[in-house]
């Protein structure tokens, strides 16, 4: 996915410089710098309260009134997928997807997007009639129909069961390969981050303490070995002790 953009590094899609955000006395983000390339898939890990959601909300422009400084450049076309699907219960699924779209083939575009997430059959259903996975698929369709240059995902699969999550992750990879947005995925799931992203960041005490490019070899045995190494490194940086790891391994 987007190999060409990594080699040349032209203009990045997102450029963050010295971003600081405070809640009261606590500094959540402490002068953070980050570039995300066009079409690059970045996962952001961090413990609860580490500020990873604060960072995403800052990029989404949703942190009104939170004091702070620094600047960032983000594309005009930004889509956000939240942990809850956030579908308007009084609009049918297709109307939720097309909400706020401009132009005259709005409905066709919405139906096409629903087709991409295999939800065409539920276009005329009410959101409450959908399962959790279906709702989140509709939310994905709503974000992709806008052809975003930057896709912000705030723990999008956190509320789903393990099986549904697996299928959603595969779907997300397909969709990103097709639409090529820059992606920032906020998650607390280390495996998910390694599987999905090309680059994994760890946020700790308001700073990125790890910035790791994921380059798993294609040979299965080596791949598994490297995966375990990366996983161990990330878990350790998240404060999981070796003893704890051995206990559940």
């Amino acid at each position: 996915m987007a190999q060409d953009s990594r080699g040349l590094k032209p203009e990045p899609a997102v450029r963050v410089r010295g971003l600081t955000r405070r809640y009261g006395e606590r500094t959540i983000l402490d002068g953070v710098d980050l570039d995300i390339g066009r079409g690059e898939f970045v996962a952001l890990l961090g413990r609860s309260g580490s500020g990873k959601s604060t960072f995403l909300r800052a990029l989404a422009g949703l942190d009104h009134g939170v004091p702070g400084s620094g600047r960032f450049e983000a594309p005009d076309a930004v889509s956000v997928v939240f942990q809850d699907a956030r579908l308007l219960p009084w609009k049918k699924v297709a109307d939720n997807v097309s909400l706020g779209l401009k132009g005259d083939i709005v409905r066709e575009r919405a139906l096409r997007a629903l087709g991409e997430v295999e939800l065409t059959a539920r276009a005329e259903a009410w959101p409450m009639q959908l399962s959790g996975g279906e709702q989140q698929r509709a939310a994905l369709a709503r974000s992709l129909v806008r052809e975003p240059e930057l896709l912000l995902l705030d723990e999008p699969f956190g509320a789903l069961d393990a099986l549904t999550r697996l299928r959603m992750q595969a779907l997300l990879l397909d969709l990103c390969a097709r639409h090529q947005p820059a992606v920032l995925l906020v998650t607390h799931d280390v495996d998910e981050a390694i599987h999905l992203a090309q680059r994994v960041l760890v946020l700790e005490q308001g700073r990125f303490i790890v910035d790791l490019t994921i380059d798993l070899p294609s040979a299965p045995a080596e791949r598994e070995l490297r995966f375990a190494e990366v996983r161990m490194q990330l878990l350790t940086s998240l404060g999981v002790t070796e003893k704890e790891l051995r206990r559940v391994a």
Partner: protein
Amino acid sequence: MADLSIATARTGTGSRAKPAGWLRLPSRSAALAEAGETSRRRKRKLGPGPVIPYGAAIGPALLLILWSLGSATGFIDDRILSAPWTVASTGWELIQDGRLQENLWTSFVRSFWGLFWGIVAGASLGVIAGLSRIGEYLVDGPIQIKRAIPALALIPLLMLWFGIGEGMKILTIALITFAPIYIQTHDGLRSTDARFIELAETLDLSNAQFLRHVVLPAALPGFLLGLRFGVTYSWLALVVVEQVNATSGLGYMINLARTYGQTEVIILCLAVYAALGLSSDWLVRLITRKALPWRKILAD
């Protein structure tokens, strides 16, 4: 599909829809599943009990039977409470000479226009206060003060200002009905889910789109709840204005009947009030169901 049939087989009802895998079950548990049809499904022990068709009519019917029995045996004095058949025959006479319809229509028109202006005022003031901060500062305070004054206490002043004609009656009803509609509409507009406001921001909705697609639909259930209160209050207000001063209408009929000691007419008018109240409430619930189709699936 597979996990569904496992779940139903365990409770003993899915034995007919067994997938192929279940044929290989040990015979004992298969037999258990068959037997479950009758023996293993226990009746629910907790909860209020099973539903009886038209069960809601049992209470009122019982009351009517007791009333009839009491009147027939002479246990209930006819001067205190007329017999049901006396009420029915009086009702028939009043319909035949047209007095009941005439007074009912007068009352209905009063109530209708009072409610109409109450809805118009309540909804528009609710929208003004709900959508803008300045509007809230201007409108909400006076309305809260007005609400603190018992509506009946305003009647003498309204009579001085507007006389005792139809205008004063309609105004009183409107003043009483608009309050719940205003409060619920205002509240509905103000309590739009913050998550949806965020969503609207990320979707770059314009102010107009935000109002149309998010705020107003979110406030609609509140408005309809206010409407339901408003309709109930309109009958209440009607009774009040018609008892105070009127020369026509159901309240006037009741007052006249009291003067002549005609219990059966009073009872008849009360029955008409009950019918009006119940049917208008039913109508509002019907409107609510039609206006909020997405909510119906929750009730089903």
